[in-house]
């Protein structure tokens, strides 16, 4: 029903809403990549040990 409500607002709203989500996704990917790099650079392995 949330999808219906968003779609009823019009295609421009749908496009803006999805763009926002894509932007946040990219942001999360960026943070995730940075954290992975940071931990690997600090010598952390899969078991969490340094």
């Amino acid at each position, binding site marked *: 029903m949330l999808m219906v409500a968003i779609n009823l607002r019009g295609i421009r709203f749908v496009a803006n809403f*999805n763009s926002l989500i894509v932007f*946040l996704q990219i942001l999360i990917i960026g943070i995730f990549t940075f954290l992975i790099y940071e931990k690997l650079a600090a010598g952390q392995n899969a078991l969490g040990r340094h």
Partner: protein
Amino acid sequence: MDETQPEILLLVGGALFQSVVLSFAIVTVLASGIAAHAGVSRLMYVMGRDGVLPKRFFGHISPKGYTPSYNIWLAGVVCLSAGFLSLEFVVALISFGALTAFSFVNLSVISSYGFRDGRLKRPKDVWQFFVLPLLGFASIGALWLEVEETSLKAGISWAAVGLIYLGWLTKGFRRAAPPAARRGF
């Protein structure tokens, strides 16, 4: 989401980061659903506008938001039925639909540009309008060989419903379907 990903998220970002990303994964599914919902409602609108589907319902545009509101509601109701269907059945229908659509897109390029418009004179055009779509069709043909029996049964049943409706619409295939009829085909 893969089972290993939550573990990695917890390891590198802690519990809060893991919760944020996992919550956002659900929002991402919502975004995907919204895009599909927008597409399918407008596809039904075009079919309604062209007279393939009943125009009064499917060709309706809301004067308030200029959206195909009836189609949006219909797609929403059909989406709710997903809760009562097995994931395997839904995936089977999607696989069949996607492969059928992609197959016919390739065949349509050959038929429309290659033969109907007669654009197979230059080598570049033969490459673009015959060889490439033929290769596309062949690669999808390879995927057809991998389709499960459930997909075939569900897809062929749904296609049969469409074929019966088309037969009724074209008075037993003696008339062209509405959009083609309007263009004089």
